[in-house]
């Protein structure tokens, strides 16, 4: 069947003549400029202040148009996750796809609506993008700007085009929630609060990692974080654990209580939640039941050298591990009945169970390290004898003496460490119904939350109160936000910016409460700890039990006086060590809380790595 066609007329096109009397549709560019759309993908803009130098833009660029270049005048701040590198874009290769914008974790990289650059010299086609805030010279206001001069160095101000949007970005800003025991339930016992990721959750969380490695620079021990997270993602927990053990021999401990400097540096944390690096390490450590079988580590060829390690805390355990791998004979002395040092007595059971500690310690023992527990150096064995019998000594003694506020009647109060120790590895003390904890740091939180648990266990279904009083105000509390929030959720009451004045007693000499005074300021102008008070502004806190948790000091009494005189300290009262980790006493090395100011496990491991290298170098006769 043939279709009927409309053949049309040869005169019909003459209708177009009407157009002669209409206005032209074309623009007389550049006299009638056309404004690009708001999402226009033109040249880059980069906010140097929020750019972290993570290099994800360079990694995702399909054309390898972006290169990270070091900017010497910028400062690298590894702890904040800031590198002094900034992207440099080659506009000969850039295809303006904007993937770099969608992957940029801080959202500093954007595209502008400028897109003209004409030049005979191809070297002008590369640019280290900045924006008008950091580059006043090349950005012009709309009055000064001329499209005839438009180039990479003649740009318009406030001309942002395609920009980052968290709903459409290429990374996942939210972390996989960690399953936890709810506050109402966990405060009734010492059950471990954090349940831990299962395999799927761990894989999903690991999949968020962008592998920019800012975390590795922030970590004091420089763990190969992105590698071990990648191994978890690839379902290879053995491989992950091997990567961890290159730098950290106590993952079950660190996976629970690490201060996670890495997470503060995580590039995703700039606009989202950082990767749960600590929980992933814990996952790797908990998943592998038998470290030894998975790691297949072998102690090094025996060197015949002997090293005594005093203190089986994180620094002592780590140095024992690193030295054992190099074939040195290591003997660890500790006055506690088991390994872990402060980890064994400090962190409450709901954060760090004994089994996790023993798992790490037993593995180190299996490498041939000899542990002598219940042995106090200075009492059971003399320091000077150790110095004679061993080729080197490492001091990882930590800070084991709780400090006291020394206000009136404070001798009636308990100290934090003995209280925590009794709870964890001794017999839990009987507590009062209304407990006052003095202090605002993490130890004070541990004490308060343990005290609360004991109250709930000892006075079931009765009214009990635990309150803390701290010099610091809410915004300067030294405890981590996480700890404060968890303590609040469990019902601990806070009295920030109050200082203890006097412990009030009743007629029988029992504690009645704590008289407090309002804090004026905690630190002086130089930022040193120097609290001042409004003496007349007082508050009375009722309570029948007071625990002090205001800090700890180290106990060097085991070192004979003559030797101790040789031991030098830094202005911040830390043991002075050289680049080998050696103190001013020859052959005596030190690490951990007596050396660094971070006062945490991972920095102790970092110290131990340095000292292990130093000891090895000196024992093998290198200079």
């Amino acid at each position, binding site marked *: *069947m*043939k*279709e009927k066609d409309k053949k049309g007329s040869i005169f*019909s096109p003459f209708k*177009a003549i009407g157009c002669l009397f209409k206005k032209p549709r074309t623009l007389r560019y550049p006299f009638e400029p056309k404004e690009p*759309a708001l*999402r*226009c993908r033109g040249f880059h803009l980069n906010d140097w202040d929020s750019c972290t130098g993570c290099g994800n833009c360079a990694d995702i660029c399909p054309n390898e148009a972006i290169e990270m270049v070091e900017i010497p005048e910028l400062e690298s701040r590894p702890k904040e996750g800031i590198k002094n590198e900034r992207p440099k874009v080659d506009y000969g290769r850039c295809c303006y796809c904007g*993937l770099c914008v969608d992957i940029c974790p801080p959202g500093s990289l954007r*595209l502008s609506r400028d897109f003209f650059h004409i030049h005979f010299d191809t070297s002008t086609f590369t640019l280290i993008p900045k924006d008008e805030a950091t580059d006043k010279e090349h950005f012009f206001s709309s009055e000064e700007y001329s499209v005839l001069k438009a180039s990479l160095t003649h740009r318009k101000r406030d001309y942002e085009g395609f920009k980052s949007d968290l709903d459409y970005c290429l990374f996942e800003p939210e972390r996989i929630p960690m399953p936890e025991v709810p506050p109402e339930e966990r405060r009734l016992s010492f059950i471990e609060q954090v349940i831990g990721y299962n395999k799927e959750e761990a894989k999903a969380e690991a999949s968020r990692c962008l592998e920019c490695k800012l975390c590795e620079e922030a970590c004091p021990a420089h763990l190969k974080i992105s590698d071990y997270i990648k191994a978890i993602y690839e379902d290879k927990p053995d491989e992950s654990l091997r990567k961890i053990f290159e730098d950290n021999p106590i993952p079950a401990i660190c996976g629970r209580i690490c201060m996670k400097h890495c997470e503060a540096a995580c590039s995703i944390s700039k606009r989202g939640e950082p990767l749960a690096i600590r929980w992933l390490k814990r996952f790797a450590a908990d998943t592998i039941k038998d470290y030894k079988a998975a790691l297949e580590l072998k102690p090094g060829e025996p060197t015949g050298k002997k090293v005594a390690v005093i203190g089986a805390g994180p620094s002592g355990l780590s140095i024992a591990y690193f030295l054992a791998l190099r074939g040195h004979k290591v003997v660890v002395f500790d006055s506690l009945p088991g390994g872990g040092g402060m980890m064994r007595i400090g962190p409450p059971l709901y954060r760090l169970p004994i089994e996790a500690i023993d798992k790490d310690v037993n593995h180190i023992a299996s490498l041939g390290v000899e542990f002598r527990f219940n042995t106090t150096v200075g009492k059971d064995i003399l320091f000077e004898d150790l110095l004679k019998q061993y080729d080197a000594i490492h001091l990882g003694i930590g800070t084991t003496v709780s400090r006291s506020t020394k206000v009136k009647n404070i001798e009636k109060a308990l100290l934090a460490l003995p209280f925590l120790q009794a709870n964890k590895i001794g017999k839990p003390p009987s507590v009062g119904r209304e407990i006052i904890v003095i202090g605002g740091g993490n130890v004070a939180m541990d004490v308060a939350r343990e005290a609360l648990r004991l109250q709930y266990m000892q006075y079931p279904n009765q009214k009990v109160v635990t309150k803390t009083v701290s010099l610091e105000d809410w915004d300067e509390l030294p405890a981590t936000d996480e700890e404060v929030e968890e303590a609040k959720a469990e019902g601990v009451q806070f009295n920030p910016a109050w200082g203890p004045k006097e412990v009030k007693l009743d007629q029988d000499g029992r504690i009645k409460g704590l008289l407090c005074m309002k804090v004026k300021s905690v630190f002086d102008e130089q930022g040193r700890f120097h609290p001042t008070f409004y003496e007349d502004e007082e508050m009375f806190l009722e309570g029948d039990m007071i625990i002090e948790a205001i800090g700890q000091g180290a106990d060097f009494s085991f070192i004979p006086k003559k030797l101790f005189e040789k031991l030098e300290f830094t202005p911040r009262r830390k043991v002075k060590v050289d680049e080998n980790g050696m103190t001013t006493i020859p052959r005596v090395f030190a690490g951990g809380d007596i050396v660094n100011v971070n006062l945490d496990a991972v920095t102790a491991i970092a110290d131990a790595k340095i000292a292990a290298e130093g000891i090895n170098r000196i024992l093998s006769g290198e200079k």
Partner: protein
Amino acid sequence: MRELELYFGPQHLGMVGNFSITLKVEGDRILEAAANPGYLHRGFEKLMEYRTWIQNFPLVCRVNVIEPDHIEMIYAMAVEKLAQIEVPERAHFVRSIYLELARVGSHLFGLWAYANMLGFDTVAQWAMYHRDLVLDLFEELTGGRVYHIYIWPGGVRRDFPPGFTDRIVHTLHSIGGCVPDYNSTFFDNRLFYERAKGIGQLTQQQAKEWGATGQTLRATGMKYDIRKVEPYAAYDKVDWEVPTRKDGDAYSRILVIRDEMIESVHMIFKLLDAMPEGPVYTRMPNPFKWKVPKGEAYVRCESSRGELGLYLVSNGGDKPYRVHFRTPSYPHGLIVLEKLLRNASIADVGNIMISLYVVAPEIDR
């Protein structure tokens, strides 16, 4: 008369695109035609094996310069099929509207090429102007005028900006309002009728045998459109017609293109009315760790030129193992064209080629 070998393109006024046909002619009659592609070979299929799944996303659109959108769509569809990514409901609508806008823009470009080819310069300029209005919409939605880089696995890259719906409606009304002008100057023009009627004619049987799809097939009377046969995006959510003609010649093909453009405009209005609220993007996995599960997928969609297919194989790695495009211009430009040129006159070479809607970059890739 003496037999001559004639090179038609790539440097030839009648040639649109980087393409060439070697003709064996006797006088004005073509004895044999051999399509001679390769001038635009960029090796995308191989290149894609060396780029991660996300890095391929800004690359695929470059396969077809005139209409990058459908290529983005099949890449997203194939990856979604292999990686089992769910696409939100609204994203299906946004994709359909976007693809129909692309069809309008592409057909206007085709109209420019055809009118220009035949010497109807006024119409050609109009079509180019109207295509520019569509590009303005793309620029506002995606940030790019030519390479939009918009449909990605999991949905689309950004939602409509505020007031965008109104601007689509406004633009389409102003294009639609000019259809009578196009009719009077081009489609209802006797000169055009005489120039296109009966040129490059093929039967439905031949069209099927030679692998023709799109307008070339529909102009022979067959109602075959992937959007109906195997609906994707939101094409099954609204009612629309597949325009066809019976004669299978250049004239019918161009009229099918015109009717399709009008149908697309109507479809966009219906889609805009039916479009639900909600998210338009399901987050893709971390691009640096993304491994698409092992498997192979063949997906297809109805591009402006016909059936566009993508065969994608993953061996479970972070990059495709093998990519192969089935582009509609390939059979049109290499098989159908060669056969239709036999016995045609030299003056009709460009006429037939452009009426088949051949786009050289699609053939070469």
